[in-house]
């Protein structure tokens, strides 16, 4: 690739890339494989090998394109076929054995098997296959608006040409040659973009603080230390569209006046780091990074710093300490990093998505962005949908959409005919919301007002089988283990709070413990040094607020209605639903179930160990979770366990 010396050369390269892409779409067969970490974990490497093998077998010539995650993690591995001048058709849950069959049907016979096909993306000239749904017609994608994820799953993240063809680095060119740094800051301020790391601080304002701060050099840092359990938004951007981040960072650096930047990415994201390295190298080679970017006066260098796995390093001052080679732990603010950050110099820290969105704001303008979403939370929100939901994956929705739409329309609702119980947003430092809150609009302020937080994008759905006390305890275990140990309320308060929760889930809780939870939580929030300590009680407080009855049942009746907390419930077979199929009898490891074929079964409580095997195998929902004292005592059962 040539070093680009001005904007015209950039546009020339872009035109070439577009022509190349058009030529490929019009004249070549493309096989597109989802090669994000989710795809690879589901077996995409094996599918890729099978693709090469089958192409040889059918004597077909095709361009194999590796893309990042398109969001449908529940359907991986994905294989898309785009025939010359045709639509891109997506096959889901592809196995190596299936590849040959797909090729034979699709490429040889020209048949489209609806059994395997998810949908289609129209071709370059709008070509579609009749009878197959387009992505926009499918609920999973229909309600999405993809800005941060605009290219994820659509372009080859290791090929800068693809990014350029999609309009990439256009925002940077515009900023460098048509706008002053102050103009850029005004544009970002006008867009109303709020930081996507979770706190929702106005990005443009943050940049302005840093620009106005005295000190040189200044730094821009990307916080890619995504550590929430069940969250993978940033990883997907890094793996699927790394140049979007780089472009945003260079724009930020130009606006602030920073000659240097760091991407702080956790080492547990090897593929993301690999692709970032490739992207950075490409950007340097093309003169999009380094000295005199695109021939301008602006120079910028970017390095990757790999984090060693501490969750707290997602806190900006801890992250900065870690880059400096110190123990990764936060320090009190003020001074804020915008004034005294890395090496004591003015530093701007933003999340991956914030930067990825910025490059689009510069390309398309502040007005375009602020029209999406709500007044106070413009734009989109990216969520990693996980838990008890049909369509787990990565989505990007306009702010203001309701939780219900996300969970039921996009997410497809709760699997296995189970009931929705709660949704946790904001990760282990967020909060859960109950069914009554399903119509809450998703934006920074509404979620906070409802009792949860926006966070950086984790969304975990749970059904009736989740004990909310245990659920809160799980997050608390995580957060207290990840406390850096620096300040007293977090180091010791987290431990004490966890002990109270553990007492409750193990049946030793009292009503006073519920007051104790509130007391500890209050002071942890008030006195902790950083957001980790302040928000550690979040999940506990939210679940206590919305599921207080469940907490009370745990402490007063020693009953866990979800059937999770050991020793605090028992199983009973509902005589009306049981058909006497014998499945539960076979599954029971202690032979505690008494019965005959086609005769209602009964559980001998003296033998039952509450392992849940019967509950899991029963297809009829006949195994019920009951309070211990509600059960009739089966006296005759003693000694007659085996029939």
């Amino acid at each position, binding site marked *: 690739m040539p070093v680009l010396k001005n904007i015209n050369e950039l546009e020339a390269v872009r035109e070439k890339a577009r022509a190349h892409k058009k030529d490929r779409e019009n004249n070549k067969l493309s096989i597109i494989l989802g090669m994000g970490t989710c795809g690879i974990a589901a077996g995409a490497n094996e599918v890729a090998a099978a693709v090469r093998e089958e192409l040889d077998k059918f004597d077909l010539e095709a361009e194999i394109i590796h893309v990042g995650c398109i969001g449908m993690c529940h359907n991986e591995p994905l294989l898309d076929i785009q025939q010359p001048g045709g639509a891109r058709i997506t096959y889901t849950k592809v196995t190596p054995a299936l590849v040959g069959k797909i090729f034979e049907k699709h490429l040889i016979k020209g048949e489209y098997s609806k059994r395997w096909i998810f949908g289609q993306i129209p071709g370059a000239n709008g070509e579609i296959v009749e009878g197959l749904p387009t992505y926009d017609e499918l609920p999973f994608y229909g309600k999405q608006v993809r800005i941060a994820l605009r290219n994820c799953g659509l372009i080859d993240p290791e090929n800068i040409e693809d990014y350029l063809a999609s309009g990439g680095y256009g925002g940077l060119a515009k900023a460098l040659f048509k706008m002053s740094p102050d103009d850029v800051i005004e544009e970002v301020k006008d867009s109303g973009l709020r930081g996507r790391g979770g706190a929702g601080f106005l990005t443009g304002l943050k940049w302005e603080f840093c620009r106005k701060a005295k000190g040189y050099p200044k730094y821009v840092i990307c916080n890619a230390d995504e550590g929430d359990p069940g969250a993978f938004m940033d990883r997907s951007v890094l793996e699927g569209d790394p140049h979007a981040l780089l472009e945003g960072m260079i724009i930020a650096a130009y606006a602030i006046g920073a000659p240097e930047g760091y991407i702080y990415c956790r080492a547990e994201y090897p593929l993301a780091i690999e692709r970032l390295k490739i992207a950075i190298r490409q950007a340097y080679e093309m003169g999009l990074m380094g000295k005199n970017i695109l021939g301008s006066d602006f120079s910028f260098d970017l390095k990757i710093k790999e984090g060693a796995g*501490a969750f*707290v390093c997602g806190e900006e001052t801890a992250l900065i300490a870690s880059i400096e080679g110190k*123990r990764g732990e936060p*320090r*009190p603010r*003020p*001074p804020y990093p915008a004034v005294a950050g890395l090496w004591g110099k003015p530093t701007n820290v933003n999340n991956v998505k914030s930067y990825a969105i910025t490059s689009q704001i510069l390309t398309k303008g502040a007005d375009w962005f602020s029209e999406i979403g709500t007044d106070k939370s413009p734009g989109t929100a990216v969520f990693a949908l996980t838990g008890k939901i049909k369509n787990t994956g990565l989505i990007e929705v306009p702010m203001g959409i309701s939780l219900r739409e996300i969970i039921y329309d996009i997410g497809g609702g709760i699997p296995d005919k189970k009931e929705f119980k709660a949704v946790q947003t904001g990760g282990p430092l967020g909060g859960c919301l109950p069914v009554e809150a399903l119509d809450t609009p998703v934006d920074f302020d509404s979620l906070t007002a409802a009792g949860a937080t926006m966070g950086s994008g984790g969304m975990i759905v749970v059904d009736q089988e989740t004990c909310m006390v245990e659920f809160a305890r799980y997050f608390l275990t995580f957060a*207290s*283990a*990840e*406390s*850096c*140990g*620096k*300040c*007293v*309320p*977090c*180091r*010791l*308060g*987290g*431990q*004490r709070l966890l*002990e109270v929760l553990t007492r409750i889930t193990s049946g030793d809780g009292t009503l006073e413990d519920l007051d104790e939870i509130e*007391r*500890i939580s209050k*002071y942890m*929030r*008030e*006195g*902790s*040094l950083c957001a980790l300590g*302040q928000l550690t009680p979040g999940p506990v407080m939210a679940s206590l607020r919305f599921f207080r009855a469940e907490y009370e049942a745990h402490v007063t009746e020693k009953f866990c209605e979800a059937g999770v907390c050991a020793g605090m419930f028992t199983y009973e077979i509902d005589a009306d639903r049981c058909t006497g199929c014998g499945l539960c009898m076979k599954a029971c490891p202690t032979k505690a179930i008494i019965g005959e074929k086609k005769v209602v079964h009964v559980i001998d409580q003296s033998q039952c160990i509450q392992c849940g095997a019967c509950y899991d195998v029963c297809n009829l929902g006949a195994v019920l979770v009951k309070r211990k004292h509600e059960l009739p005592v089966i006296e005759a059962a003693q000694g007659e366990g085996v029939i």
Partner: protein
Amino acid sequence: MGKVNLIIDGKEIQAEQGDTILQAARRHNHYIPILCDHPALPPEGACRICLVEIEGQRALHPSCTYPVTEGMVVETNTERVRAARKFNLELLISDHPLDCMTCEATGNCLLQDLAYEYEVKEDVFHGTRHHFSVNDPNPFIQVDRNKCILCRRCVRACREINGVEAISVFYRGFNAYIGFGADSSMDNSPCEFCGSCVEVCPTGALWPKLSLGQGRSWEVEKVQTTCPYCGVGCQLVLEVKDNKIIKVDSAWEGPSNHGWTCVKGRFGYDFIQHADRLDKPRVRKYLLDGKQKPAASKRDHEKEGNPWQWVEVDWEVALGITAEKMNQTRDTYGADSMGFLTSAKCLNEENYLMNKLTRQVIGTNSIDHCARL
């Protein structure tokens, strides 16, 4: 530096630009309790005892790190602030032994003082406690992590005062503890035993082994003195009980050492009361008798009447014999047969006199000084 006007607890005060709230308060003798701060160390913001309310701020902030701004209104002793402090003290006490009656630091322990002030009498949480063994094998400092409140004063003292960084925090959250080197014992770490960590420890977690069981802080008389070891002239504060030194503290105002000492100044005082210490001069019996060096072995020199026996004499006799022998040697073998070595323990004046003695009285230039080595 400009001045900043602010109001602390209803009182208008003036602070220096760049002050923290705590520094401003201290300038005006306004008390804000704190554990992790030490005037000789940079602020940490870890203990959360110095939390204050700042008008216009939702959360409580640590006064030790929060910079003053013009017109700021600070409340340091409201119900809300006191409740937050008490909670933090309760947490600390929930993982701290309640053995004040036998603890070395009693009477000189900030945690004890604050527990008293905030009426924290017992562990209200009844949760898990740490049980560290107190067995660091180094010869000078007892390390009792059970009493450590992780204020990190020692970490900062090692880094900022001695510049060694032998102490750091290991692990995270509730499992965090203070450790040395690569999580080893103190004597297996880069530690130089300057004792700065002991000096700044607000509890009994770090204590000089020499001082264990020697006395309480209220029983001692504090005497400031100059360290006798070398010529730097470090100031020390001796804790003296019954005319016996039981501990050495830092003299923070010492012009040459600002509170720092080396291992010798801090811990090298046990010779003072040592049974083997000579407090009068001694000479060999044969010298006292005016005889020649005997051919007999020194083996039985402790026996009465042996010519090698050490005999206690007064200074006049001892110096007389020394002078006589020196004269004899110079006269017999010449001045250059003799050499003189002086010590950094001596004062400048004493070293000057030694120089005079060597060059002018004896007549040789062979004089050296241990500090040159």
